[in-house]
């Protein structure tokens, strides 16, 4: 077998049914979020119906304790969770990549200090730190997002630092340096394309994780506040009475499908990447 059959070429992610299902679901949810006002039969806060109606033709997912249409709230919920998750991952990734790149690039005490900082954040279970931040700044979704960014950048920093460190000693970087390329240029030209892949995979997986963590914080009452139509908060509301299963079940399923979709895609992408880098992206 020649080395020409690189693992990447051999296992294109788009040949995997799971990735396709995941991608389809992501597209679907993005569309739902974009078109929410068109799709939802009611507004997310409209209290138009008797409360706690069972699912019926009128209200496919029933109504909640304030007589709001659960389907509409679930649809509008995507407008809360998805953009925030994307935003948050983008922030965390940018911050983490910057820190990781700086640490890997400068090495020495800069690296030491930044990585100890990352260790520090790692030593806190994310949700506890997020809780502390949310408690400190007040329970709002904005603060929850901030909290999650605070806890999630170190993953990227470590990943990027590791990639930079290993790539820094790569022969193609040495070759480029010998041609007179400055180290900043090697970083941007030679390393960036190699780092982008793993970071993208991590980000894909992280969107799912972000949705989970945000909804978890909202569930605890530290994220989105009522009456915002947020899935985690809706599950919490639904949990008040198990007999009204529809109030909590559907938002829970929404979280599940969104997270699952991103995990399907992320996982397949990770598999498709070179296994050595794949290991560095947790999973």
């Amino acid at each position, binding site marked *: 077998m020649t080395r020409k059959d690189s693992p990447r070429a051999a296992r294109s992610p788009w040949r995997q049914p*799971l990735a396709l299902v995941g991608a389809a679901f992501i597209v679907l949810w993005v569309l739902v979020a974009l078109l929410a006002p068109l799709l939802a039969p009611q507004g997310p806060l409209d209290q138009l119906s008797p409360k706690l109606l069972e699912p019926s033709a009128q209200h496919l997912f029933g109504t909640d304790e304030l007589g709001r249409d659960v389907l509409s709230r679930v649809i509008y919920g995507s407008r809360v969770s998805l953009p925030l998750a994307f935003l948050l991952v983008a922030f965390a990734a940018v911050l983490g990549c910057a820190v990781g790149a700086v640490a890997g690039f400068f090495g020495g005490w800069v690296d030491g200090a930044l990585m100890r900082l990352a260790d520090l954040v790692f030593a806190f279970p994310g*949700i506890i730190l997020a809780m502390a931040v949310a408690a400190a700044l007040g329970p709002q979704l904005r603060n929850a997002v901030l909290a999650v960014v605070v806890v999630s950048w170190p993953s990227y920093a470590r990943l990027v630092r590791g990639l930079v460190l290993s790539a820094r000693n790569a022969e193609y970087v040495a070759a480029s340096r010998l041609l007179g390329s400055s180290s900043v240029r090697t970083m941007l030209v030679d390393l960036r394309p190699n780092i982008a892949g793993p970071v993208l995979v991590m980000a894909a997986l992280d969107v799912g994780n972000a949705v989970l963590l945000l909804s978890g914080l909202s569930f605890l009452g530290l994220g989105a506040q009522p009456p915002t139509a947020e899935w985690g908060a809706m599950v919490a509301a639904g949990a008040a009475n198990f007999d009204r299963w529809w109030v909590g079940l559907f938002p829970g399923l929404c979280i*599940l499908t969104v997270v699952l979709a991103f995990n399907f895609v992320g996982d397949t992408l990770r598999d498709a990447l070179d296994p050595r880098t794949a290991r560095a992206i947790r999973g």
Partner: protein
Amino acid sequence: MNSAKQPRGSTGAGRRRPARPGGPLLWFLGRRLVAAALLCVGITLVAFVLTQLVPGDPAAANLGQRAIGDPEVVAAFRAKYGLDQPVPVQYLTYIGNVLQGNFGLSQQSHRPVAQDLAEYVPATIELALFAIVLSLLVGVALGVVAAVNRDRWPDQVLRVVSLGGVSMPTFWVALVAFYLLFFKFGLLPGGGRLDPGMSPPPYATGFYTLDAALAGQWDVLSSAAGHLVLPSLVLAVYTVGMLMRFTRASVLEILGNDYVRAARAKGLPERVVILRHVLRPAMVAIITVAGVAFGSLLSGAVLVENIFSWPGLGQYAYRSAVNLDLPGIMGVSIVVAAVYILINLLVDLLYGVIDPRIRLT
């Protein structure tokens, strides 16, 4: 997103852990301890700064609506918890006390934080240990099955199962499981650590199962163990998925090695090849992830303990956070950091057990 933590130095597992010649163990332990101490100081500092950022007032959070209107009561409260001191003095005092094992008084439980922690930490650790053992047994076994059957149907099914596991909101699973397994079908006992009305075993370790066994209270042991099952199952949903994915990846990587082919070429039964030649090196990565998974269990506990009325660290942390209970938050932070450090140390020691190269060179 915590689950997302990339294990320390997980890249390339054994290979990346450089040999440390020359008194490797002492060198290693020394470095670790210094790092641990610094980490703890850092953690307290971060926690402290965070709590100082709070716009709210611990007095307001912990005094009644009426009491807060009474300046004398507020002054007494502030004096009692040292809040009337300048912030740096508060911090230094705190650190000084911590060094003497005094974590301060909790504003929400009115008890020494150390006493609170002694009660709540074992509860959560017991739960997390139970869950991690469960996850390791199930996750590793299924991960191996998936890897051995790579790209065939068992692998595909297990992939969906494991990804499903890591995609489920823990709190939601907890609610559903509690409703179905406890309420609907009565298969498992419900919330709390013991049956209602049952007294905890005499305190020795704080692990009810262990304490009950030590005291020979078998009914308590059975009750305590029974109450562990449901919450730990729920917690394990995530970690099983996580460990399964990692075991699969790690086993696949090992399966590609020459030495596995060499073992097969020796005509060894497949069982021996997998257990002895594949799983052992794979364990290096697996225990790294298990360490991270343990951390994620602590997080999961925050979401689950409420639902299962589990009087653990998670509930305590939550209550401390919402009550702006500074000593409580700091205590939790230090404990969590200590657990993190211990886990990492344990993981490193396990590397040495698994991989002789680390011991020898």
